[in-house]
């Protein structure tokens, strides 16, 4: 297990390098710089600004400098918010996004697995058909359509919940964003769980367990659930990536001051270092998360060779 973990970690290094190089190249070939403004800056000032941010060095040297910085956890100063470093901005935005995304994943797992299991147990009954039709609807309605509808219903019409912002940080401000973020994932996880649960329930050892007179509850929680969850665990990687992407829109819609908003604002302002910092941060996060998922996968299903 340890060698496996080490090997997996080592194989993540080229992925990380490609990630950094791609982000770096993309931002550098982009037309327009961070100091573009209505007024043309005097050339000597522009030169001094460029020198201050090392923009006058050859590209490979800039990339080397950036890599070195990343290794030390230094993502450079933000071009837009002059008094902050990128690391500080990520530090303020990420806890908010993490709380949002973490809650969304937990909610998606809990509801998705429950709905999928119930649908599998009542396969081809009306409950099953309704659950799966709802799940398909959940997959088909993008969350940026769903979010305004949720606001319209619960915040504007019923006035049960606040429409946006974080307010004083009370939990009621998180309810709508978390639900909007989790719904598509709930739908995917419910469909996946149903499929794998049906397969597991058909297998011989479940039939044996039934023949021995175990109750349905014992069969499901004691024998069927763990193997049925294997595909769900491997879906957690894409799910996390989906939630990160989704949070960009959701944070925008609900006015949540998280990392996704920084990213969109940074991109629109050509804040190179901030945008790059967020992409790298998310990239590393996804790679790490996938690593953990692989470990969990192997623990759940020792036959897997990765």
């Amino acid at each position: 297990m340890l060698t496996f973990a080490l090997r997996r970690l080592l194989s993540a290094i080229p992925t990380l390098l490609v990630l950094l190089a791609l982000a770096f190249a993309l931002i550098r070939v982009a037309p327009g710089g961070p100091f573009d403004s209505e007024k043309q800056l005097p050339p000597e000032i522009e030169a001094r600004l460029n020198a201050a941010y090392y923009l006058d060095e050859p590209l490979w040297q800039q990339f080397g400098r950036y890599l070195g910085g990343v290794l030390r956890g230094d993502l450079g100063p933000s071009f837009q918010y002059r008094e902050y470093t990128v690391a500080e901005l990520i530090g303020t935005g990420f806890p908010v996004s993490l709380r949002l995304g973490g809650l969304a994943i937990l909610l998606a797992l809990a509801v998705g697995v429950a709905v999928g299991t119930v649908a599998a147990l009542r396969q081809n009954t009306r409950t099953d058909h309704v659950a799966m039709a709802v799940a398909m609807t959940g997959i088909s309605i993008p969350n940026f359509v769903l979010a305004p509808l949720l606001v319209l219903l619960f915040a504007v019409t019923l006035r049960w919940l606040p429409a946006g912002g974080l307010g004083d940080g009370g939990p009621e401000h998180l309810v709508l964003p978390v639900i909007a973020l989790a719904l598509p994932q709930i739908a995917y996880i419910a469909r996946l769980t149903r499929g794998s649960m049906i397969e597991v329930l058909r297998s011989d050892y479940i039939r044996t367990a039934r023949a021995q007179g175990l109750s349905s509850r014992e069969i499901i929680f004691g024998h069927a659930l763990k193997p049925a969850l294997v595909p769900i665990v491997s879906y957690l990687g894409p799910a996390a990536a989906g939630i990160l992407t989704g949070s960009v829109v959701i944070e925008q819609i609900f006015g949540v001051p998280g990392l996704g908003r920084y990213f969109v604002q940074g991109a629109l302002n050509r804040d190179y270092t901030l945008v790059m910092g967020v992409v790298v941060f998310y990239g590393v996060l996804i790679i790490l998360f996938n690593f953990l998922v692989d470990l969990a996968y192997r623990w759940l299903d020792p036959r897997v060779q990765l």
Partner: protein
Amino acid sequence: MTGATDTLAAAPRGRSLWDDAFDSLRRNRAAMIAVALMLTVVVLVLFGPLLSPYDLYSTDWDRISQPPSVSTAHWFGTDDVGRDLFVRTLYGGRISLLVGLAATAVSLLIGIAWGATAGYAGGRIDQLMMRVVDVLYAMPFMFFVILLMVFFGRNIFLIFVAVGAINWLDMARIVRGQTLSLKKREFIEAARAGGVSPVNIVRRHIVPNLLGVVVVYVTLTIPQVILVESFLSFLGLGVQEPMTSWGALVNDGAQVMETAPWALMFPATFLAVTLFCFNFIGDGLRDALDPRDRSAGG
């Protein structure tokens, strides 16, 4: 002589995989409803604008944010500068569907070429090519696409390329897997023994046999692509005014949903129904073409 033809005619026609699949699909009521709905949407999007007296661009300052009405022929109402939403929703649909098809075609071409080559070549080449796919797979691509849109202007061609370039990864993986199992089959062996060149084996024998998987995958990719495009348009990074797409319309509608809910409802419904149909058709096709499930029965 005649006897021989008679026996041939009387012999039951062979049932291909496609005949079975088609029958099975026809029995799938959800999928058939989805096909019918989908066709309706396509016909509406293509010919609907001809029915309306309004066009895509003209604004009517006397009729700002009007609710849907039959008497004014603004069947879906108007937006906040008095443009007809019926026409805009349907034109937006053309763009969304076009992006969906074009970007899927891009991912299809790259994915099939890459996957079939890797699978057929095998060995080191295969490992190298699939390693590239693995590495690219771990990239947060949505963020890169957003960057591309911001940096290089918001043109629609770039959306095709960007989205197509993301989605080929799945396609390549699926195609490679299929190719690996096809490669060991007798007819490929026979073609090789007959001296057919590797390029021709891939082109004439492997790729046509991948069609089943590919068709399923295409129907599931199109909605994903439409979703990505509307996601970008929603952020204001996709299609630009005065052109529009469903995502852009949903974005506009969401701004005014408290005073003019129709501006959100119609484009959102069209978008959701279209995605719904593609997903259902794809699901139905997968069930129909998946030989594993044949014994289990429907």
